[in-house]
Protein backbone atom coordinates (compact mmCIF):
# COMPACT_ATOMS: atom_id res chain seq x y z
CA UNK A 1 0.00 0.00 0.00
CA UNK A 2 2.86 2.26 0.94
CA UNK A 3 4.28 1.44 -2.45
CA UNK A 4 1.22 2.97 -4.11
CA UNK A 5 0.28 5.79 -1.84
CA UNK A 6 3.73 6.82 -0.72
CA UNK A 7 4.86 7.37 -4.29
CA UNK A 8 1.68 8.78 -5.75
CA UNK A 9 3.63 11.51 -7.50
CA UNK A 10 5.67 8.99 -9.40
CA UNK A 11 2.63 7.00 -10.36
CA UNK A 12 1.02 10.11 -11.72
CA UNK A 13 4.12 10.95 -13.70
CA UNK A 14 4.27 7.42 -14.96
CA UNK A 15 0.63 7.65 -16.07
CA UNK A 16 1.37 10.85 -17.91
CA UNK A 17 4.29 9.20 -19.69
CA UNK A 18 2.06 6.38 -20.76
CA UNK A 19 -0.52 8.84 -22.04
CA UNK A 20 2.15 10.65 -23.98
CA UNK A 21 3.58 7.45 -25.43
CA UNK A 22 0.11 6.25 -26.30
CA UNK A 23 -0.49 9.45 -28.20
CA UNK A 24 2.73 9.15 -30.11
CA UNK A 25 2.36 5.52 -30.99
CA UNK A 26 -1.31 4.96 -31.53
CA UNK A 27 -2.70 8.20 -32.86
CA UNK A 28 -2.69 8.63 -36.60
CA UNK A 29 -3.07 12.36 -36.64
CA UNK A 30 0.35 13.93 -36.54
CA UNK A 31 -0.75 16.88 -34.45
CA UNK A 32 -1.96 14.44 -31.85
CA UNK A 33 1.40 12.74 -31.97
CA UNK A 34 3.02 16.06 -31.28
CA UNK A 35 0.69 16.62 -28.38
CA UNK A 36 1.65 13.20 -27.09
CA UNK A 37 5.27 14.21 -27.33
CA UNK A 38 4.58 17.35 -25.40
CA UNK A 39 2.80 15.42 -22.68
CA UNK A 40 5.69 13.00 -22.51
CA UNK A 41 8.16 15.83 -22.05
CA UNK A 42 5.88 17.44 -19.48
CA UNK A 43 5.89 14.29 -17.43
CA UNK A 44 9.67 14.38 -17.20
CA UNK A 45 9.52 18.03 -16.20
CA UNK A 46 7.11 17.10 -13.48
CA UNK A 47 9.48 14.38 -12.34
CA UNK A 48 12.28 16.83 -11.84
CA UNK A 49 10.01 19.25 -10.05
CA UNK A 50 8.79 16.50 -7.79
CA UNK A 51 12.27 15.52 -6.72
CA UNK A 52 12.92 19.10 -5.74
CA UNK A 53 10.11 19.13 -3.24
CA UNK A 54 10.55 18.99 0.50
CA UNK A 55 8.11 18.95 3.36
CA UNK A 56 7.32 22.38 4.79
CA UNK A 57 9.44 24.16 2.24
CA UNK A 58 8.55 27.11 0.12
CA UNK A 59 9.40 28.14 -3.39
CA UNK A 60 13.08 28.87 -3.90
CA UNK A 61 12.59 32.63 -4.11
CA UNK A 62 14.47 34.65 -1.56
CA UNK A 63 12.09 35.69 1.13
CA UNK A 64 12.56 37.84 4.19
CA UNK A 65 10.77 35.31 6.33
CA UNK A 66 13.48 32.73 6.15
CA UNK A 67 17.20 33.39 6.03
CA UNK A 68 18.82 31.90 2.99
CA UNK A 69 21.10 29.74 5.12
CA UNK A 70 18.12 27.71 6.37
CA UNK A 71 18.22 25.46 3.39
CA UNK A 72 15.48 23.26 4.74
CA UNK A 73 12.94 26.02 4.26
CA UNK A 74 13.48 26.32 0.56
CA UNK A 75 12.85 23.80 -2.14
CA UNK A 76 15.83 22.62 -4.13
CA UNK A 77 16.17 25.25 -6.83
CA UNK A 78 18.45 23.32 -9.11
CA UNK A 79 15.88 21.00 -10.72
CA UNK A 80 13.61 23.99 -11.20
CA UNK A 81 16.28 25.84 -13.13
CA UNK A 82 17.07 22.75 -15.14
CA UNK A 83 13.43 22.44 -16.04
CA UNK A 84 13.21 26.02 -17.14
CA UNK A 85 15.78 25.09 -19.72
CA UNK A 86 14.01 21.86 -20.53
CA UNK A 87 10.70 23.62 -21.05
CA UNK A 88 12.33 26.05 -23.43
CA UNK A 89 13.83 23.13 -25.31
CA UNK A 90 10.39 21.58 -25.45
CA UNK A 91 8.89 24.75 -26.83
CA UNK A 92 11.58 24.99 -29.48
CA UNK A 93 10.96 21.38 -30.43
CA UNK A 94 7.26 22.06 -30.73
CA UNK A 95 8.03 25.00 -32.96
CA UNK A 96 10.12 22.90 -35.29
CA UNK A 97 7.53 20.13 -35.20
CA UNK A 98 4.73 22.45 -36.19
CA UNK A 99 6.78 23.98 -38.98
CA UNK A 100 7.30 20.52 -40.33
CA UNK A 101 3.61 19.75 -40.00
CA UNK A 102 2.66 22.87 -41.89
CA UNK A 103 5.02 21.91 -44.68
CA UNK A 104 3.66 18.39 -44.75
CA UNK A 105 0.11 19.69 -44.84
CA UNK A 106 0.93 22.02 -47.70
CA UNK A 107 2.54 19.21 -49.67
CA UNK A 108 0.23 16.32 -48.94
CA UNK A 109 -2.98 18.00 -47.95
CA UNK A 110 -3.46 15.80 -44.94
CA UNK A 111 -2.16 15.36 -41.46
CA UNK A 112 -3.03 11.73 -41.16
CA UNK A 113 0.09 9.61 -40.99
CA UNK A 114 -1.35 6.65 -42.83
CA UNK A 115 -2.47 8.77 -45.74
CA UNK A 116 0.90 10.47 -45.98
CA UNK A 117 2.66 7.12 -46.02
CA UNK A 118 0.46 6.02 -48.88
CA UNK A 119 1.16 9.18 -50.80
CA UNK A 120 4.87 8.83 -50.22
CA UNK A 121 4.88 5.33 -51.68
Amino acid at each position, binding site marked *: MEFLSGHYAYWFIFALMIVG*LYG*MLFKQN*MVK*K*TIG*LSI*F*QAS*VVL*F*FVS*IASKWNATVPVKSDQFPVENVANYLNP*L*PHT*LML*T*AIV*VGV*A*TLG*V*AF*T*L*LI*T*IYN*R*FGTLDEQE*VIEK*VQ
Partner: protein
Amino acid sequence: MIETHLPVAIVFTYLLFAVIGTAVSFRNKDWAQPLAVLGAGVATLFSIIAFISFLNEGEIVRYWFGNWQPPVGIEFVYDGLSGFISLVINFVAFIVLWHSGANAKAEFKSKRHVYYSVAMLLMLGFNGMVMTGDLFNLYVFLEISSLASYALIAIGNKNAPFAAFRYLIIGTVGGTLYLLGVGFLYTITGTLNMIDMEAMLPMLMDNNVAIAALVLILGGIGVKAALFPLHGWLPDAYTNASSTSSALIAPIGTKVAAYVLFRVVLYVYGADTFESMIPIDYIIGLLASVGIIYGSVMAIGQKELKKMLAYSSVSQIGYIIMGLSLMNPFGFAGALLHVLNHAFMKACLFLVSGNLRLKLGHTRVFDFDSSVAKKQPWTMFGFTVAAISMVGLPPLAGFFSKWYLAIGTVQNSNWLFLAVILVSSLLNAVYFFRILEKVYTNKDNPADLDLDAVEQDEVGFNGKAPVMILAIGLLVIGLTNAAIVGFLFNIFPG
Protein backbone atom coordinates in the same frame (compact mmCIF):
# COMPACT_ATOMS: atom_id res chain seq x y z
CA MET B 1 47.17 30.07 -21.04
CA ILE B 2 45.35 30.14 -24.30
CA GLU B 3 44.76 26.43 -24.03
CA THR B 4 42.33 26.80 -21.18
CA HIS B 5 40.01 28.79 -23.36
CA LEU B 6 40.23 26.63 -26.45
CA PRO B 7 37.44 24.19 -25.55
CA VAL B 8 35.03 27.07 -25.31
CA ALA B 9 36.53 28.84 -28.27
CA ILE B 10 35.70 25.92 -30.50
CA VAL B 11 32.06 25.97 -29.52
CA PHE B 12 31.84 29.73 -29.50
CA THR B 13 33.32 29.96 -32.99
CA TYR B 14 30.37 28.14 -34.46
CA LEU B 15 27.94 30.37 -32.60
CA LEU B 16 29.75 33.42 -33.84
CA PHE B 17 29.76 32.29 -37.42
CA ALA B 18 26.14 31.22 -37.24
CA VAL B 19 25.19 34.75 -36.31
CA ILE B 20 27.59 36.46 -38.67
CA GLY B 21 26.67 34.14 -41.49
CA THR B 22 22.97 34.79 -41.08
CA ALA B 23 23.47 38.52 -40.87
CA VAL B 24 25.68 38.70 -43.92
CA SER B 25 23.37 36.47 -45.93
CA PHE B 26 20.71 39.14 -45.78
CA ARG B 27 22.96 41.23 -47.94
CA ASN B 28 24.57 38.64 -50.14
CA LYS B 29 23.73 34.97 -50.17
CA ASP B 30 26.98 33.99 -51.79
CA TRP B 31 28.90 34.82 -48.66
CA ALA B 32 27.12 32.17 -46.66
CA GLN B 33 29.25 29.24 -47.76
CA PRO B 34 32.68 30.84 -47.46
CA LEU B 35 31.80 32.07 -43.99
CA ALA B 36 30.61 28.64 -42.93
CA VAL B 37 33.75 27.03 -44.28
CA LEU B 38 35.81 29.64 -42.49
CA GLY B 39 33.95 28.97 -39.28
CA ALA B 40 34.54 25.25 -39.53
CA GLY B 41 38.13 25.89 -40.50
CA VAL B 42 38.78 28.11 -37.50
CA ALA B 43 37.16 25.56 -35.22
CA THR B 44 39.31 22.83 -36.74
CA LEU B 45 42.37 24.95 -36.22
CA PHE B 46 41.47 25.44 -32.57
CA SER B 47 40.86 21.71 -32.25
CA ILE B 48 44.29 20.97 -33.68
CA ILE B 49 46.04 23.45 -31.42
CA ALA B 50 44.21 22.15 -28.39
CA PHE B 51 44.99 18.57 -29.31
CA ILE B 52 48.67 19.22 -29.86
CA SER B 53 48.89 21.05 -26.59
CA PHE B 54 47.13 18.14 -24.89
CA LEU B 55 49.61 15.70 -26.41
CA ASN B 56 52.52 17.77 -25.22
CA GLU B 57 51.38 18.55 -21.72
CA GLY B 58 49.12 15.64 -21.04
CA GLU B 59 46.90 17.52 -18.71
CA ILE B 60 43.17 17.67 -18.87
CA VAL B 61 41.82 21.15 -19.37
CA ARG B 62 38.82 22.10 -17.30
CA TYR B 63 37.09 25.31 -18.17
CA TRP B 64 34.74 26.62 -15.52
CA PHE B 65 32.01 28.81 -16.88
CA GLY B 66 31.85 32.08 -15.01
CA ASN B 67 34.57 30.70 -12.78
CA TRP B 68 31.93 28.85 -10.80
CA GLN B 69 33.54 25.77 -9.38
CA PRO B 70 31.94 22.44 -10.13
CA PRO B 71 29.71 20.87 -9.03
CA VAL B 72 27.92 24.16 -8.66
CA GLY B 73 29.07 25.48 -11.98
CA ILE B 74 29.10 23.98 -15.43
CA GLU B 75 32.42 23.05 -16.92
CA PHE B 76 33.89 22.03 -20.21
CA VAL B 77 36.40 19.20 -19.97
CA TYR B 78 39.00 18.70 -22.63
CA ASP B 79 40.58 15.31 -22.19
CA GLY B 80 42.00 12.79 -24.62
CA LEU B 81 38.62 11.40 -25.66
CA SER B 82 36.84 14.70 -26.19
CA GLY B 83 39.89 16.15 -27.89
CA PHE B 84 40.12 13.27 -30.32
CA ILE B 85 36.43 13.30 -31.19
CA SER B 86 36.24 17.06 -31.59
CA LEU B 87 39.22 17.02 -33.91
CA VAL B 88 37.62 14.35 -36.06
CA ILE B 89 34.20 15.95 -36.33
CA ASN B 90 35.45 19.46 -36.94
CA PHE B 91 37.83 18.38 -39.67
CA VAL B 92 35.19 16.31 -41.41
CA ALA B 93 32.69 19.16 -41.12
CA PHE B 94 35.22 21.50 -42.67
CA ILE B 95 35.77 19.16 -45.60
CA VAL B 96 32.06 18.58 -46.13
CA LEU B 97 31.16 22.25 -45.95
CA TRP B 98 33.97 23.05 -48.37
CA HIS B 99 32.47 20.60 -50.82
CA SER B 100 28.88 21.71 -50.35
CA GLY B 101 28.86 24.77 -52.59
CA ALA B 102 27.74 23.23 -55.85
CA ASN B 103 25.25 20.86 -54.28
CA ALA B 104 23.72 23.53 -52.06
CA LYS B 105 23.18 25.77 -55.03
CA ALA B 106 21.53 23.02 -56.98
CA GLU B 107 19.39 21.62 -54.19
CA PHE B 108 18.45 24.64 -52.08
CA LYS B 109 18.68 27.40 -54.66
CA SER B 110 17.61 30.63 -53.03
CA LYS B 111 17.49 29.19 -49.55
CA ARG B 112 21.04 27.91 -49.42
CA HIS B 113 22.17 30.42 -46.83
CA VAL B 114 19.74 28.81 -44.41
CA TYR B 115 21.61 25.55 -44.78
CA TYR B 116 24.86 27.13 -43.70
CA SER B 117 23.43 28.90 -40.69
CA VAL B 118 21.74 25.76 -39.48
CA ALA B 119 24.91 23.77 -40.20
CA MET B 120 26.82 26.09 -37.89
CA LEU B 121 24.23 25.51 -35.18
CA LEU B 122 24.46 21.80 -35.75
CA MET B 123 28.22 21.84 -35.25
CA LEU B 124 27.69 24.06 -32.21
CA GLY B 125 25.50 21.41 -30.69
CA PHE B 126 27.84 18.55 -31.55
CA ASN B 127 30.92 20.26 -30.21
CA GLY B 128 29.09 21.27 -27.08
CA MET B 129 28.09 17.66 -26.51
CA VAL B 130 31.67 16.58 -26.89
CA MET B 131 33.21 19.25 -24.71
CA THR B 132 30.83 19.45 -21.82
CA GLY B 133 31.52 17.93 -18.46
CA ASP B 134 28.01 18.30 -17.14
CA LEU B 135 25.27 15.79 -17.82
CA PHE B 136 22.42 18.26 -18.11
CA ASN B 137 24.47 20.61 -20.24
CA LEU B 138 24.92 17.65 -22.53
CA TYR B 139 21.15 17.39 -22.84
CA VAL B 140 20.93 21.01 -23.87
CA PHE B 141 23.54 20.64 -26.56
CA LEU B 142 22.00 17.34 -27.59
CA GLU B 143 18.71 19.07 -28.24
CA ILE B 144 20.42 21.94 -30.05
CA SER B 145 22.09 19.56 -32.44
CA SER B 146 18.93 17.50 -32.78
CA LEU B 147 16.75 20.45 -33.70
CA ALA B 148 19.33 21.58 -36.19
CA SER B 149 19.45 18.13 -37.72
CA TYR B 150 15.65 17.92 -37.96
CA ALA B 151 15.74 21.19 -39.86
CA LEU B 152 18.56 20.08 -42.13
CA ILE B 153 16.86 16.82 -42.95
CA ALA B 154 13.60 18.59 -43.70
CA ILE B 155 15.20 20.59 -46.50
CA GLY B 156 15.18 17.76 -48.93
CA ASN B 157 12.94 16.17 -51.46
CA LYS B 158 9.19 16.02 -51.25
CA ASN B 159 9.18 13.39 -48.54
CA ALA B 160 11.83 15.00 -46.41
CA PRO B 161 9.62 16.89 -43.95
CA PHE B 162 7.73 13.71 -43.19
CA ALA B 163 10.96 11.78 -42.58
CA ALA B 164 12.15 14.68 -40.45
CA PHE B 165 8.93 14.63 -38.44
CA ARG B 166 9.23 10.95 -37.68
CA TYR B 167 12.84 11.48 -36.72
CA LEU B 168 11.74 14.37 -34.52
CA ILE B 169 9.29 12.23 -32.60
CA ILE B 170 11.72 9.38 -32.03
CA GLY B 171 14.69 11.66 -31.42
CA THR B 172 12.90 13.78 -28.86
CA VAL B 173 11.72 10.69 -27.03
CA GLY B 174 15.34 9.61 -26.95
CA GLY B 175 16.49 12.91 -25.59
CA THR B 176 13.76 12.92 -23.00
CA LEU B 177 14.63 9.43 -21.84
CA TYR B 178 18.20 10.60 -21.45
CA LEU B 179 16.96 13.53 -19.39
CA LEU B 180 14.96 11.21 -17.21
CA GLY B 181 18.04 9.05 -16.68
CA VAL B 182 20.02 12.10 -15.69
CA GLY B 183 17.25 13.01 -13.27
CA PHE B 184 17.49 9.58 -11.67
CA LEU B 185 21.22 10.00 -11.29
CA TYR B 186 20.74 13.40 -9.76
CA THR B 187 18.40 12.02 -7.12
CA ILE B 188 20.94 9.53 -5.89
CA THR B 189 24.15 11.50 -6.29
CA GLY B 190 23.09 15.09 -5.97
CA THR B 191 25.43 16.20 -8.72
CA LEU B 192 25.32 16.61 -12.45
CA ASN B 193 29.03 16.92 -12.96
CA MET B 194 30.54 13.94 -14.74
CA ILE B 195 33.78 13.87 -12.82
CA ASP B 196 31.99 14.12 -9.50
CA MET B 197 29.56 11.43 -10.46
CA GLU B 198 32.39 9.15 -11.43
CA ALA B 199 33.65 9.37 -7.89
CA MET B 200 30.26 8.61 -6.40
CA LEU B 201 28.83 5.88 -8.56
CA PRO B 202 31.09 3.02 -7.47
CA MET B 203 29.52 3.30 -4.03
CA LEU B 204 26.07 3.01 -5.55
CA MET B 205 26.70 -0.09 -7.58
CA ASP B 206 23.75 -2.07 -6.33
CA ASN B 207 21.36 0.79 -6.33
CA ASN B 208 18.43 0.02 -8.58
CA VAL B 209 18.06 3.65 -9.44
CA ALA B 210 21.57 3.75 -10.85
CA ILE B 211 20.85 0.73 -12.99
CA ALA B 212 17.57 2.20 -14.18
CA ALA B 213 19.29 5.46 -14.98
CA LEU B 214 21.90 3.62 -17.00
CA VAL B 215 19.27 1.81 -19.02
CA LEU B 216 17.41 5.04 -19.68
CA ILE B 217 20.54 6.87 -20.74
CA LEU B 218 21.67 4.03 -22.97
CA GLY B 219 18.24 3.77 -24.52
CA GLY B 220 17.95 7.48 -25.04
CA ILE B 221 21.35 7.96 -26.58
CA GLY B 222 21.00 4.67 -28.40
CA VAL B 223 18.22 6.22 -30.44
CA LYS B 224 20.55 8.97 -31.57
CA ALA B 225 23.33 6.50 -32.20
CA ALA B 226 21.06 4.29 -34.29
CA LEU B 227 21.78 1.26 -32.17
CA PHE B 228 19.69 -1.68 -33.28
CA PRO B 229 16.68 -1.81 -32.76
CA LEU B 230 16.40 1.94 -32.28
CA HIS B 231 17.79 2.69 -35.73
CA GLY B 232 14.50 2.87 -37.60
CA TRP B 233 14.60 6.60 -38.23
CA LEU B 234 17.98 6.57 -39.94
CA PRO B 235 17.39 5.07 -43.40
CA ASP B 236 14.42 7.28 -44.18
CA ALA B 237 16.01 10.38 -42.75
CA TYR B 238 19.32 10.04 -44.59
CA THR B 239 17.74 8.97 -47.85
CA ASN B 240 15.16 11.71 -48.10
CA ALA B 241 17.43 14.48 -46.90
CA SER B 242 19.33 16.38 -49.51
CA SER B 243 22.80 15.19 -50.41
CA THR B 244 24.31 18.22 -48.77
CA SER B 245 22.53 17.62 -45.48
CA SER B 246 23.15 13.92 -45.27
CA ALA B 247 26.82 14.46 -46.10
CA LEU B 248 27.10 16.61 -42.99
CA ILE B 249 24.94 14.63 -40.59
CA ALA B 250 25.80 11.08 -41.52
CA PRO B 251 29.53 11.02 -40.79
CA ILE B 252 29.21 13.01 -37.60
CA GLY B 253 25.84 12.63 -35.92
CA THR B 254 25.89 9.04 -34.84
CA LYS B 255 29.57 9.31 -33.89
CA VAL B 256 28.87 12.04 -31.36
CA ALA B 257 26.09 9.94 -29.87
CA ALA B 258 28.52 7.04 -29.68
CA TYR B 259 30.95 9.37 -27.93
CA VAL B 260 28.31 10.06 -25.30
CA LEU B 261 27.89 6.34 -24.79
CA PHE B 262 31.63 5.99 -24.33
CA ARG B 263 31.70 8.87 -21.92
CA VAL B 264 28.82 7.62 -19.80
CA VAL B 265 29.82 3.99 -19.76
CA LEU B 266 33.57 4.23 -19.38
CA TYR B 267 34.11 7.52 -17.65
CA VAL B 268 31.02 8.26 -15.60
CA TYR B 269 30.14 4.75 -14.61
CA GLY B 270 33.54 3.26 -15.17
CA ALA B 271 34.26 -0.13 -16.69
CA ASP B 272 34.30 -1.98 -13.37
CA THR B 273 31.02 -0.53 -12.13
CA PHE B 274 29.41 -1.16 -15.47
CA GLU B 275 30.41 -4.77 -15.67
CA SER B 276 29.44 -5.59 -12.13
CA MET B 277 25.97 -4.19 -12.41
CA ILE B 278 24.14 -6.36 -14.86
CA PRO B 279 25.61 -7.99 -17.94
CA ILE B 280 24.58 -5.02 -20.03
CA ASP B 281 27.87 -4.99 -21.87
CA TYR B 282 27.17 -8.35 -23.44
CA ILE B 283 23.60 -7.37 -24.30
CA ILE B 284 24.79 -4.20 -25.96
CA GLY B 285 27.41 -6.18 -27.82
CA LEU B 286 24.73 -8.55 -29.04
CA LEU B 287 22.47 -5.74 -30.18
CA ALA B 288 25.42 -4.17 -31.94
CA SER B 289 26.17 -7.49 -33.65
CA VAL B 290 22.61 -7.82 -34.85
CA GLY B 291 22.81 -4.26 -36.11
CA ILE B 292 26.00 -5.01 -37.99
CA ILE B 293 24.52 -7.97 -39.82
CA TYR B 294 21.12 -6.37 -40.30
CA GLY B 295 22.60 -3.18 -41.73
CA SER B 296 24.81 -5.06 -44.16
CA VAL B 297 22.06 -7.37 -45.34
CA MET B 298 19.61 -4.52 -45.86
CA ALA B 299 22.26 -2.53 -47.70
CA ILE B 300 22.67 -5.36 -50.19
CA GLY B 301 18.98 -5.14 -51.00
CA GLN B 302 19.01 -1.46 -51.82
CA LYS B 303 18.71 -0.07 -55.31
CA GLU B 304 19.66 3.46 -54.49
CA LEU B 305 23.04 4.59 -53.33
CA LYS B 306 22.01 6.90 -50.49
CA LYS B 307 19.74 4.35 -48.90
CA MET B 308 22.46 1.78 -49.26
CA LEU B 309 24.89 4.08 -47.47
CA ALA B 310 22.31 4.75 -44.76
CA TYR B 311 21.93 1.06 -43.94
CA SER B 312 25.68 0.71 -44.17
CA SER B 313 25.93 3.42 -41.50
CA VAL B 314 23.68 1.38 -39.20
CA SER B 315 26.06 -1.49 -39.70
CA GLN B 316 29.18 0.55 -39.08
CA ILE B 317 27.96 2.14 -35.87
CA GLY B 318 27.48 -1.43 -34.70
CA TYR B 319 31.24 -1.96 -34.91
CA ILE B 320 31.86 1.05 -32.74
CA ILE B 321 29.39 0.01 -30.10
CA MET B 322 30.58 -3.56 -30.17
CA GLY B 323 34.07 -2.24 -29.51
CA LEU B 324 32.70 -0.35 -26.52
CA SER B 325 30.99 -3.43 -25.17
CA LEU B 326 34.24 -5.38 -25.17
CA MET B 327 35.58 -3.23 -22.34
CA ASN B 328 39.21 -3.87 -23.16
CA PRO B 329 41.91 -1.59 -24.60
CA PHE B 330 41.85 -3.22 -28.04
CA GLY B 331 38.09 -2.90 -28.31
CA PHE B 332 38.26 0.68 -27.13
CA ALA B 333 41.04 1.60 -29.54
CA GLY B 334 39.42 -0.26 -32.41
CA ALA B 335 36.08 1.43 -31.81
CA LEU B 336 37.52 4.94 -31.62
CA LEU B 337 39.76 4.32 -34.61
CA HIS B 338 36.62 3.24 -36.41
CA VAL B 339 34.96 6.50 -35.41
CA LEU B 340 37.74 8.28 -37.26
CA ASN B 341 37.76 5.86 -40.17
CA HIS B 342 34.04 5.77 -40.63
CA ALA B 343 33.74 9.54 -40.46
CA PHE B 344 36.23 9.78 -43.32
CA MET B 345 34.80 6.89 -45.30
CA LYS B 346 31.14 7.87 -44.98
CA ALA B 347 31.87 11.52 -45.64
CA CYS B 348 33.78 10.52 -48.77
CA LEU B 349 30.97 8.24 -49.91
CA PHE B 350 28.25 10.80 -49.30
CA LEU B 351 30.27 13.47 -51.09
CA VAL B 352 30.67 11.07 -54.01
CA SER B 353 26.93 10.51 -53.94
CA GLY B 354 26.46 14.27 -54.03
CA ASN B 355 28.77 14.58 -57.02
CA LEU B 356 26.92 11.85 -58.85
CA ARG B 357 23.58 13.47 -58.11
CA LEU B 358 24.87 16.74 -59.42
CA LYS B 359 26.14 15.46 -62.74
CA LEU B 360 24.14 12.33 -63.41
CA GLY B 361 20.95 13.51 -61.79
CA HIS B 362 20.43 10.27 -59.94
CA THR B 363 22.11 7.68 -57.80
CA ARG B 364 20.17 4.60 -58.75
CA VAL B 365 22.82 1.92 -58.52
CA PHE B 366 21.23 -0.39 -61.02
CA ASP B 367 21.29 2.30 -63.67
CA PHE B 368 25.03 2.80 -63.40
CA ASP B 369 27.25 1.73 -66.26
CA SER B 370 30.82 2.36 -67.31
CA SER B 371 29.99 5.76 -68.75
CA VAL B 372 29.86 6.93 -65.14
CA ALA B 373 33.54 6.17 -64.66
CA LYS B 374 34.36 7.91 -67.88
CA LYS B 375 32.35 10.99 -66.99
CA GLN B 376 33.49 11.31 -63.42
CA PRO B 377 36.83 9.52 -63.00
CA TRP B 378 37.96 11.44 -59.93
CA THR B 379 34.69 10.93 -58.12
CA MET B 380 34.74 7.22 -58.82
CA PHE B 381 38.35 6.99 -57.75
CA GLY B 382 37.36 8.45 -54.40
CA PHE B 383 34.49 5.97 -54.26
CA THR B 384 36.81 3.06 -54.98
CA VAL B 385 39.24 3.99 -52.24
CA ALA B 386 36.44 4.47 -49.70
CA ALA B 387 34.78 1.22 -50.80
CA ILE B 388 37.98 -0.79 -50.44
CA SER B 389 38.47 0.73 -47.00
CA MET B 390 34.89 -0.13 -45.99
CA VAL B 391 35.46 -3.75 -47.00
CA GLY B 392 38.53 -3.68 -44.81
CA LEU B 393 41.47 -4.34 -47.12
CA PRO B 394 44.89 -3.19 -46.01
CA PRO B 395 46.73 -0.90 -46.06
CA LEU B 396 43.69 1.37 -45.94
CA ALA B 397 42.28 2.55 -42.66
CA GLY B 398 39.24 0.29 -42.58
CA PHE B 399 41.37 -2.83 -42.20
CA PHE B 400 43.02 -1.65 -39.03
CA SER B 401 39.92 -0.84 -37.03
CA LYS B 402 38.63 -4.32 -37.86
CA TRP B 403 41.99 -5.78 -36.88
CA TYR B 404 41.92 -4.21 -33.44
CA LEU B 405 38.28 -5.10 -32.90
CA ALA B 406 39.11 -8.68 -33.88
CA ILE B 407 41.92 -8.82 -31.36
CA GLY B 408 39.60 -7.32 -28.77
CA THR B 409 37.03 -10.07 -29.35
CA VAL B 410 39.68 -12.79 -29.19
CA GLN B 411 40.95 -11.36 -25.94
CA ASN B 412 37.47 -11.80 -24.47
CA SER B 413 37.13 -15.18 -26.15
CA ASN B 414 34.04 -13.79 -27.77
CA TRP B 415 33.91 -15.96 -30.88
CA LEU B 416 30.44 -14.86 -31.95
CA PHE B 417 31.50 -11.25 -32.17
CA LEU B 418 34.62 -12.20 -34.08
CA ALA B 419 32.57 -14.13 -36.60
CA VAL B 420 30.16 -11.19 -36.95
CA ILE B 421 32.99 -8.76 -37.70
CA LEU B 422 34.45 -11.04 -40.35
CA VAL B 423 31.21 -12.07 -42.01
CA SER B 424 30.07 -8.48 -42.28
CA SER B 425 33.24 -7.57 -44.17
CA LEU B 426 32.24 -10.09 -46.77
CA LEU B 427 28.71 -8.68 -46.92
CA ASN B 428 30.13 -5.18 -47.36
CA ALA B 429 32.17 -6.47 -50.28
CA VAL B 430 28.99 -7.61 -52.01
CA TYR B 431 27.31 -4.27 -52.24
CA PHE B 432 30.43 -2.24 -52.87
CA PHE B 433 32.05 -4.44 -55.46
CA ARG B 434 28.75 -4.66 -57.24
CA ILE B 435 29.00 -0.96 -57.94
CA LEU B 436 32.65 -1.23 -58.93
CA GLU B 437 31.73 -3.96 -61.39
CA LYS B 438 29.03 -1.80 -62.93
CA VAL B 439 31.18 1.25 -63.23
CA TYR B 440 34.52 -0.17 -64.28
CA THR B 441 33.48 -2.94 -66.63
CA ASN B 442 31.25 -2.83 -69.65
CA LYS B 443 28.94 -5.55 -68.51
CA ASP B 444 25.91 -3.37 -67.78
CA ASN B 445 26.33 -0.95 -70.62
CA PRO B 446 23.16 -0.45 -72.62
CA ALA B 447 23.52 -1.73 -76.14
CA ASP B 448 23.32 1.70 -77.72
CA LEU B 449 26.01 3.24 -75.55
CA ASP B 450 28.94 4.61 -77.49
CA LEU B 451 31.65 4.78 -74.87
CA ASP B 452 34.10 6.74 -76.98
CA ALA B 453 31.60 9.53 -77.39
CA VAL B 454 31.21 9.98 -73.64
CA GLU B 455 32.98 13.10 -72.51
CA GLN B 456 34.40 13.79 -69.09
CA ASP B 457 31.89 15.79 -67.09
CA GLU B 458 33.48 15.97 -63.68
CA VAL B 459 32.64 18.32 -60.85
CA GLY B 460 34.74 21.39 -60.22
CA PHE B 461 37.75 21.71 -57.97
CA ASN B 462 35.65 22.21 -54.85
CA GLY B 463 33.84 19.03 -55.67
CA LYS B 464 36.94 16.95 -56.30
CA ALA B 465 39.48 18.15 -53.79
CA PRO B 466 37.51 17.28 -50.62
CA VAL B 467 36.85 13.78 -51.95
CA MET B 468 40.52 13.32 -52.79
CA ILE B 469 41.63 14.61 -49.40
CA LEU B 470 39.37 12.15 -47.63
CA ALA B 471 40.43 9.28 -49.86
CA ILE B 472 44.12 9.95 -49.42
CA GLY B 473 43.43 10.53 -45.75
CA LEU B 474 42.22 6.95 -45.51
CA LEU B 475 45.57 5.70 -46.75
CA VAL B 476 47.44 8.03 -44.42
CA ILE B 477 45.38 6.95 -41.43
CA GLY B 478 45.99 3.35 -42.34
CA LEU B 479 49.74 3.76 -42.51
CA THR B 480 49.99 5.90 -39.37
CA ASN B 481 47.42 4.09 -37.32
CA ALA B 482 50.00 2.77 -34.88
CA ALA B 483 50.57 6.27 -33.55
CA ILE B 484 46.84 6.97 -33.32
CA VAL B 485 46.14 3.70 -31.58
CA GLY B 486 49.06 4.20 -29.21
CA PHE B 487 47.40 7.42 -28.15
CA LEU B 488 44.05 5.67 -27.75
CA PHE B 489 45.58 2.96 -25.59
CA ASN B 490 46.93 5.68 -23.33
CA ILE B 491 43.56 7.29 -22.76
CA PHE B 492 41.77 4.05 -22.05
CA PRO B 493 40.36 4.48 -18.57
CA GLY B 494 41.09 1.55 -16.32
